[in-house]
């Protein structure tokens, strides 16, 4: 057993020459203070170079060594033979001992960057460095420790060759971890050879990019673009339909896309490894983390399919890694690596946000880190305001401007690539659709201003996907008057439904796509004469006019009255009323232009109008609620007596047909890029986010066509039932229930997303243990306990490094409790990555502390080694067990059918 005693030492700030002097001087005392070195043990003193460079420069140097050189803190470290830790320590010691920056500069930099917890803890015994205590003084201050460190290495100074050997060993370890990760992720990647779970969406969207067909999705485009790119490069031609989970791929090349996702998913392990290594400077901790992630079945499963999650997690972890790396460059601001890691952080943030909006959480984490970083810099009075300004500007540039530019760029590419008309058209305004080749609005032209007799479609601004729609079906009995429904509608041709009945008052709803039932004729309220009669002059509709809206297909008027609306009880019902355009005074609406600037006429697409019911004074609006089956699951339209100026009650005119007016090209009205960006974000966040997922799925699968189809699919399980597919956030960390990736009952190959219980429960336990040990350490520090250097270094790792990871876990987990949306198990995985990293750091630190506190027993040194090894083996063994268990899971008679959903 090798026994190592080392000192906590700041980054050496002396030249090799001076170091050697100190070495000579302090050789004796060091040895006398260290445990008596028996000949059988090789005593090695080494610098606490295990601490990251920045930390060494900040915390430890803040101790009053300069003034009181004597109380040096001792640090014992126990090593087991043959463990990779040993070479690393020396390797780092060797590296860090090399002088890189002149002493004076280092001393300036190290100031004011004391981490808060430790800083306060130390504050009891010393004052913060003052202005002017710089330069040579500071160099002297750290001198003795440098000497100690040098001394530490002196008994057996590693030859340059062996140092290279250690470096090689470290790289080899990284390579091993990476290799393991790749091996597990790519193992049987081609199975099952059919569409699994959400592959049906993301694979399909990848194909859309290859086919350049326009589509629409609730997530930002980057992830799907990358999938499309991977498919394109690997020779996939975009012809596979990805219709539903379980479809066989057959001859289509899908391995490129899966391989790409698996590649990114495999990189998570080395990223986590490096992050932990950077935070704790401890190889065992990093190895433990890597093992946790490598052997976790959940991470493995999630990385193997064409999903957004591996891409998202890749960017999150990459952002975290580059943030940590950049933190450790903080002592050399504006150097090349500093810039590199800072801008890489920004790039990864853009990537994370560009894949899913969940990326916002890592942005918050980096933002918080940056703020606290700036706060420390700001407290350093030796930095001039100009330098501060530079720091601030650098961060704004790299962490705000750069990500925003990249994020916008992905949208630019998205809109550029998708130039053909496709399934997503209907979500967008006519002006946007005019850009898409193949759309019937491409190169279309319409009259600019509304006149009486115009045939129009009217679109709601808040429910931007909804058009004012009516059809022959009547409101069912017991719901207001039996009149024709008015709903917002989409471009589905449901007009063919033959449910004509002789009842006089049919019903009005908003419905989402364009069909003939969305067409309305503007008429004057007073006359019923045909305004298209060529003998009459063209009369424009103006702000404040009283009009009638006649439904073109059924010749009924838009009508409202004092009956409660079907869902929103406090609003009035809106119906279609009258025969052949002859109704009553409840059909009169006053048209108001909200955004009129100069003119009172109503411009197509641009004017925002409100329709106010003359008799009751209510305003026509969409309530955003979905009607039950009798309303074909379209949105409810109501007349709200509360004249609140919300977007729900604002409409604009989309299509416009009037033979008497001259047409202008739609290109004139084409939105600019920022407008498109705004429109698509409004759609994603504002409109579609609050909608239930099953509704969106109907939309995306094109099922909203006719009622009969809906009922068929309704049975096949798209619509989540009360307690079935949904999972609650508290289910996740305890691995309560998984997710079927591929579970159609007549298939033999089943995939079930479920974490390795050993890993997950260990993670859960670790979080509890972390909170406990962290608070004990924090209280001890706050009480002013004088910790031995070894313990202090470890507690610093625990508080600072572990704190960052815990914060990451909380950020990626707790917000889900607030989300009203339907949630799925896989939403937890980013948080799970953080908690695994925390586990690695925690157990390593705790075991080291254990070993330290039991140092008087001869075998204590083995505790750390044995502990880590047993954890590693336990995890690996649980994976083996898990394989059998999962085989049993496969035998379970699960037949969930189409268990698919789009996540957040």
């Amino acid at each position: 057993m090798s026994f190592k005693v080392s000192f906590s030492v700041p980054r050496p700030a002396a030249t090799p020459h001076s170091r050697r002097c100190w070495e000579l001087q302090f050789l004796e005392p060091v040895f006398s203070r260290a445990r008596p070195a028996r000949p059988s043990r090789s005593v090695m003193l080494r610098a606490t170079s295990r601490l990251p460079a920045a930390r060494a420069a900040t915390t430890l140097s803040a101790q009053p060594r300069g003034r009181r050189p004597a109380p040096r803190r001792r640090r014992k470290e126990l090593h087991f033979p043959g463990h990779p830790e040993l070479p690393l320590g020396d390797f780092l010691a060797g590296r860090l001992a090399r002088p890189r920056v002149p002493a004076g500069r280092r001393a300036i930099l190290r100031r004011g960057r004391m981490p808060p917890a430790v800083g306060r803890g130390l504050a009891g015994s010393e004052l913060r460095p003052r202005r002017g205590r710089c330069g040579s003084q500071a160099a002297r201050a750290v001198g003795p420790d440098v000497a100690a460190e040098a001394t530490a290495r002196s008994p057996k100074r590693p030859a340059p060759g062996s140092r290279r050997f250690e470096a090689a060993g470290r790289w080899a370890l990284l390579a091993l971890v990476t290799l393991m990760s790749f091996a597990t992720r790519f193992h049987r990647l081609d199975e099952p050879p059919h569409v699994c779970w959400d592959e049906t969406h993301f694979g399909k969207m990848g194909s859309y990019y290859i086919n350049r067909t326009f589509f629409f999705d609730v997530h930002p485009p980057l992830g799907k673009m990358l999938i499309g790119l991977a498919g394109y490069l690997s020779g996939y031609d975009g012809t596979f339909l990805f219709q539903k989970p379980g479809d066989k791929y057959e001859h289509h090349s899908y391995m490129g896309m899966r391989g790409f996702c698996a590649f990114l998913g495999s990189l998570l392990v080395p990223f986590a490894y490096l992050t932990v290594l950077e935070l704790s400077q401890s190889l065992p901790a990093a190895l433990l983390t890597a093992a946790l992630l490598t052997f976790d079945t959940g991470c493995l499963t999630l990385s193997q399919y064409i999903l957004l999650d591996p891409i998202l997690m890749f960017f999150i972890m990459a952002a975290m890694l580059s943030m940590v790396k950049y933190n450790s460059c903080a002592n050399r601001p504006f150097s090349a690596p500093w810039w590199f890691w800072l801008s890489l952080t920004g790039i990864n943030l853009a990537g994370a946000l560009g894949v899913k909006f969940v990326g916002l959480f890592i942005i918050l984490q980096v933002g918080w880190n940056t703020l606290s970083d700036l706060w420390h810099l700001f407290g350093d009075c030796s930095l001039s305001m100009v330098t501060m300004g530079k720091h601030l500007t650098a961060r704004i540039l790299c962490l705000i401007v750069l990500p925003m530019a990249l994020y916008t760029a992905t949208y630019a590419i998205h809109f550029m690539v998708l130039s053909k008309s496709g399934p997503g058209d209907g979500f967008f305004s006519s002006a946007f659709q005019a850009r898409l080749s193949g759309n019937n609005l491409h190169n279309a032209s319409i009259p600019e201003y509304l006149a009486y007799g115009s045939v129009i479609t009217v679109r709601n601004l808040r429910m931007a996907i909804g058009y004012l729609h009516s059809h022959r079906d009547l409101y069912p009995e017991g719901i207001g008057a039996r009149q024709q429904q008015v709903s917002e509608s989409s471009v589905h041709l449901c007009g063919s439904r033959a449910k004509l009945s002789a009842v006089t008052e049919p019903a009005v709803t908003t419905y989402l796509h364009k069909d003939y039932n969305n067409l309305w004729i503007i008429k004057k309220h007073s006359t019923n004469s045909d305004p298209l009669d060529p003998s009459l002059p063209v009369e424009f509709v103006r702000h404040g006019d009283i009009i009638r809206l006649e439904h073109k297909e059924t010749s009924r008027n838009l009508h409202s009255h004092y009956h409660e609306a079907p869902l929103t009880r406090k609003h009035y019902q809106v119906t279609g009323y009258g025969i052949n355009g002859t109704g009553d005074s409840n059909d009169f609406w006053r048209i108001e232009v909200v955004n009129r600037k100069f003119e009172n006429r109503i411009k197509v697409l641009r004017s925002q109008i409100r329709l106010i019911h003359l008799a009751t004074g209510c305003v026509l609006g969409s309530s955003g609620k979905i009607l039950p089956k009798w309303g074909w699951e379209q949105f409810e339209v109501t007349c709200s007596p509360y004249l609140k100026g919300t977007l729900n009650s604002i409409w604009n005119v989309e299509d416009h047909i009037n033979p008497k007016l001259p047409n202008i090209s739609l290109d004139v009205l084409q939105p600019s890029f920022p407008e498109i960006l705004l429109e698509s974000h409004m759609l994603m966040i504002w409109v579609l986010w609050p909608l239930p997922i099953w509704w969106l799925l109907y939309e995306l699968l094109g099922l909203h066509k006719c009622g009969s189809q809906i009922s068929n699919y309704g049975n096949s399980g798209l619509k989540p039932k009360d307690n079935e597919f949904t999972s609650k956030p508290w289910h996740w960390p305890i691995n309560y229930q998984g997710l079927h990736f591929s579970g159609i009952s007549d298939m033999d190959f089943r995939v079930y997303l479920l974490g390795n219980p050993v890993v997950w429960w260990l993670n859960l336990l670790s979080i509890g243990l972390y909170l406990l040990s962290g608070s004990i350490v924090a209280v001890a520090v706050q009480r002013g306990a004088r910790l031995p250097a070894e313990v202090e270094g470890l507690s610093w790792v625990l508080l600072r490094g572990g704190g960052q990871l815990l914060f990451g876990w909380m950020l990626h987990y707790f917000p889900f409790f607030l989300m009203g949306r339907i949630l799925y198990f896989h939403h937890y995985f980013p948080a799970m990555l953080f908690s695994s990293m925390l586990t690695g750091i925690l157990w390593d630190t705790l075991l080291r502390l254990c070993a330290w506190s039991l140092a008087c027993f001869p075998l204590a040194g083995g505790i750390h080694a044995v502990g880590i090894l047993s954890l590693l083996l336990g995890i690996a063994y649980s994976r083996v067990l898990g394989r059998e268990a999962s085989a049993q899971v496969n035998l379970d008679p699960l037949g969930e059918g189409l268990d698919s959903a789009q996540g957040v």
Partner: protein
Amino acid sequence: MGFLQRPVVVTADINLNVVALTAVGLLSRLWQLAYPRAVVFDEVYYGQYISFYMKRIFFLDSSGPPFGHMLLALGGYIGGFDGNFLWNRIGAEYSSNVPVWCLRLLPALAGALSVPMAYQIVWELGFSPCAAMGAALLVLIENALVTQSRLMLLESVLIFFDLLAVLSYLKFFNSQKHRPFSLSWWFWLTLTGMACSCAVGVKYVGVFTYLLVLGVAAVHAWHLIGDQTLSNVCVLCHLLARAVALLVIPAATYLLFFYVHLALLCRSGPHDQIMSSAFQASLEGGLARITQGQPLEVAYGSQVTLKNAFGKPVPCWLHSHQSTYPVIYESGRGSSHQQQVTCYPFKDVNNWWIIKDPRRHQLVVNNPPRPVRHGDIVQLVHGMTTRFLNTHDVAAPLSPHSQEVSCYVDYNISMPAQNLWRLDIVNRESDAEVWKTILSEVRFVHVNTSAILKLSGAHLPDWGFRQLEVVGEKLSRGYHESTVWNVEEHRYGKSQEQKERELELHSPTESDISRNLSFMARFSELQWRMLTVRSDDSEHKYSSTPLDWVMLDTNIAYWLHPRTSAQIHLLGNIVIWASASLATMVYALLFLWYLLRRRRKVYDLPEDSWLRWVLAGALCAGGWAVNYLPFFLMEKTLFLYHYLPALTFQILLLPVVFEHISNHLCRSQLQRSLFGALVVAWFASACHVSNTLRPLTYGDRSLSPSELKALRWKDSWDILIRKY
């Protein structure tokens, strides 16, 4: 005789300011308190609950814990209210038996006492008496606070307890410096905890103030830990005292509220259906009358009705009837064509089942009865048709992933009966637990297929008479209430013959054993239901969004005189609202500025005034933030009155900011005087506005339409103008 040698001295230290403020506070809140002798706005809800308390009928209100309701009911108790009034419509005249004055008294007192408390808080924060006076006067003349506290509503009570919590914490904190562990120290510490739990007990939003006080206390405790002049034991004592007073006492008090609540409400009422059978049985009347005196232990041969514990969409009982499943469903799938088993939401003779031992043939109870235990295999026989509850590998009618449950009919088509069920008592204490009426929650696990009897919640089509579907869940994903059943009605079967048994089933149950649920069980069930019951949030004419509140963009019309245009509105003093919001902003900016400057080692303020400034900000601006910002995340219908607690804290901040500006930012005496004059002018205008809006606050004067129009200072204000 020692006391004769020294004179007995009583030193009274009376702050006349506080006395005067209390007096004017009472005057403003109690003046013509009984005046609109009609139901005003939300009195229509709270009144109902008061009536329930008076009649001691159980109810469930998801809007908040019962303490606030109980306080209102206390007013009714003082006034001798008998609860006989139909609270059905806003504006209805009170009948003569309603003691309106007494009912409104407690909220009004709470509102009145908030005035001197505002004074005390600013005073305890270390600001001048002048600032303290200013704060109190602002609370006094704030129209919205006056309106809200003069009616049977809970906001003023909530504000009272919020302020009390902050005030007593400050008192405690100040006595911490000189005399820790003294009597007054303990008193204020305990009062803090009590006030916090009262605030939570009135309305759930009180929890935000509680958290704020806890947060501030935690920071102070953290400093205490860092204080190395104290011994470890001393620090530990401090921490323990705080933990007991701020965590344990509030929890206990909160439980006490529910204890009193449940002790008071002992009769069954209209909300019974939401609760479990056991809970209902603990109420007088209702279910208790039916289930009174049933045998406790279910035995072989028992006749039982089985109620599903989930109760969604409606509470229902396991049911079967003569009809069979249709051979082919609409969707084209086939069925077993056996007898339907459903869940039926009404009492019916077809809800009766007999527990049978598979090894014996008899359907009556032995003497002595053989109880059924956890893990036993049983058969369930439908009482009226004598068919066995059965499930098999046939898809259920509406949930094709689950098994169909039927009463077995032997068609001789090689489809054997699979009618054995293993009893699984979910809430058992030991593995040999006996199945108990009402108390035991049981699951039925099918022996052949491991399916679990479950209510799917779907309504069957017409062939199933729109009853609820019952299925066998093949894959149980842990515990779910829809798989849990309990015996509600129970009697020991006596007749072996079918005919006699049918007669027996038609007769009501009898015999006698009383059973009670423990308080904790009732509390946890009630609390859980209160948190989970969703009242359908409908849009209200006067609902508003949090953004409307800051600058008072909205109001609520509370009441309109049936004939004249006298009316009461919840309408704030806009000068105070606007300047309070401005003050919050100024505070935030100044705070940030000082903080940054301090970081650069520039100390603008002396240390003690900096600490005062921070503490005032933490409590007042913090109080505003915690009582305001969470509303952005809430999905329920929001009203202007939700903002009032936040507003109160904001008002307290106003004089603090004024004093700070005058003391630290005005550099010369001249500037200081000028600023003082400005503040006085501003205050005069606030008084003027308050006076102008007074008719809408008290509703005592009928205004002409032109006057009303003149009062409509913002377009978004909705002031009612009669059309003659």
